[in-house]
């Protein structure tokens, strides 16, 4: 461009962004699903025995969040009654068309794995009479007979499902990244790194949430936090945090270094519009600080008490970081008018179907379900299975 062009946004951008806080929430929730599952898989598949105390809980958490992953999308759709068209008449040239199938597959996989992991306990609890045992009878699928042989077969299936679940989790979340990464019209989104970035941040958010929930639940239950388990989670979180932040920074660095036509507007996006949520929250508060805290936290010398404090704080900070990252991608990308000459006004809406209050309400639902699941199933019992 020979001339500096002043602010101008396309007229259709004047009505604000098309994807709101619900679309920020949706990848956030699916990220937690994928991240929590990875922790369970680290135990079941990769033999990280020290994670045994949270292995069952991780599965329950993954399932609870997965159960509500579609709710923000339904609230976002302008024709929610046609939501199932996406599975009935999927247009497979669209990155979005696979959503229904990938999601259904994953939710089914999680449900089946939970039923098998908890099967011995379910069968035991189904023995009695009364309403509660009726629930367990349903969960036991009406078969109350358990033998050494059947346990062995179940263990094989659990292992298989965990193995399948890892690529499935990658698909589920990498695919969300691809929805953004595949939009050539938007230079803030259009990068092949996007699915990997989403995946890395998903794992980060899932582990961070498990750390926080594990500490909180241990306090509530009056149980000692297993130091080895916590340390292992913090170490893993630290590793994936480095990976996630490296990828996120790399993407930006590459754009800045190449300084193509779009950098003129993108640099303004980062330094003006996303100054707080990107530079401060995502990079400094949510990445740099937890990086140091986790590093200190997972070192052997650190006392278990300090480790719990550091783990909780950094876990919370990382959770904020990933939420900010989702915001910066989803909303930040839309702030860019396709005229590349100005910014779309983003006014957060509080009330209304797609408002922040509803979003907050939606985000409490997985936690309520998780509490319910922990009441029904012995999620804190250490798994006896040995794979």
């Amino acid at each position, binding site marked *: 461009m020979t001339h500096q062009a002043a602010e101008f946004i396309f007229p259709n951008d004047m009505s604000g962004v098309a994807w709101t806080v619900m679309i920020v929430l949706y990848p956030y929730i699916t990220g937690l699903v994928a991240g929590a599952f990875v922790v369970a898989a680290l135990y079941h598949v990769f033999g990280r025995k020290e994670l045994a105390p949270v292995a069952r809980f991780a599965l329950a958490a993954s399932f609870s969040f997965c159960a509500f992953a579609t709710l923000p999308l339904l609230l976002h759709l302008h024709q929610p009654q046609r939501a199932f068209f996406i*599975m*009935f*008449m999927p247009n497979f040239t669209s990155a979005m068309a696979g959503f229904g199938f990938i999601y259904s597959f994953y939710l089914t996989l999680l449900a089946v794995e939970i039923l098998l992991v908890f099967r011995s306990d379910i069968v035991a609890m189904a023995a009695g009479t009364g309403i509660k045992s009726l629930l367990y009878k349903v969960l036991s*699928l*009406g078969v109350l007979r358990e*033998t050494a042989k059947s346990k062995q*077969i179940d263990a094989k299936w659990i292992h298989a499902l965990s193995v399948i679940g890892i690529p499935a989790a990658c698909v589920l979340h990498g695919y969300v990244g691809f929805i953004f990464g595949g939009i050539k019209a938007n230079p803030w989104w259009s990068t092949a790194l996007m699915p990997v970035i989403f995946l890395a941040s998903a794992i980060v958010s899932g582990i961070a949430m498990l750390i926080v929930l594990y500490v909180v639940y241990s306090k509530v239950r009056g149980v000692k936090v297993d130091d080895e388990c916590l340390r292992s989670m913090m170490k893993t979180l630290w590793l994936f945090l480095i990976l996630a932040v490296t990828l996120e920074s790399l993407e930006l660095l590459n754009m800045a270094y190449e300084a193509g036509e779009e950098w003129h507007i993108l640099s303004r996006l980062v330094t003006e519009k996303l100054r707080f949520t990107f530079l401060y929250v995502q990079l400094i508060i949510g990445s740099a600080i937890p990086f140091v805290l986790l590093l200190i936290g997972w070192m052997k010398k650190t006392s278990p008490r300090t480790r719990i404090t550091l783990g909780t704080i950094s876990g919370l900070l990382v959770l904020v970081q990933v939420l900010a990252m989702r915001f910066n991608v989803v909303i930040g990308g839309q702030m860019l008018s396709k005229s590349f000459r100005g910014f779309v006004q983003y006014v957060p809406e509080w009330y209304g179907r797609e408002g922040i209050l509803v979003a907050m309400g939606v985000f409490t639902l997985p936690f309520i379900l998780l509490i319910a699941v922990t009441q029904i199933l012995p999620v804190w019992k250490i798994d006896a299975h040995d794979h």
Partner: protein
Amino acid sequence: MFSRDTLHLWILAGALALVGVGFFTVRGLTIPPSFGQFGHYRGAALQTATDKERKLTTRGDCAACHETLKHEMGKSHAAVHCIECHGEGKDHMTACKTAKAAAKPGDKVSCDKTNLMPTDIKSICLHCHQQMVGRATKHPQINFPEHMKDNDPKDPKSPMVCMQCHVPHDPSEEPSDDKDDEAKPAEAATPTAAPAAATPAAGGAE
């Protein structure tokens, strides 16, 4: 494969299969019959799109009766659609249809011309001919006060001032006295015509 030890797995598989069957059943009932007729979309949508109501008066609508007008229009205004100055004329067209249906063959049909003639030709002209940055320099444009000073018309305050020197249908032509173009449209127009005519392009902003 199938044994008492795997019974619960088979039940699970059966339940999932049931969900699958349910899915395909509902799917089969939901998909519109014309879906996939021409491609991955609802074929019937094409008909719906074709049948949508045409609202705006087209050039063809005007030309259906006023074919000769085309030749009257000077070269520079030949491309201007009638509705730009005369409004959409929906009432006129309806009235004409009725009048024609009632008339005997050979009768001269006179159609209702209410609201057809602009009462504020100045704002209509200036809509396109006011001097403005962006307009091609070859497009005739005026600075109205200066234009008045330079040309000194008889009645510069009149909303029909432009017609004192220009013929709207053919601005290159000087107005002749015997035709008295200036007076006629003002007579034909009723006072209520003002707002409709004052909104130039496309006739009647809503």
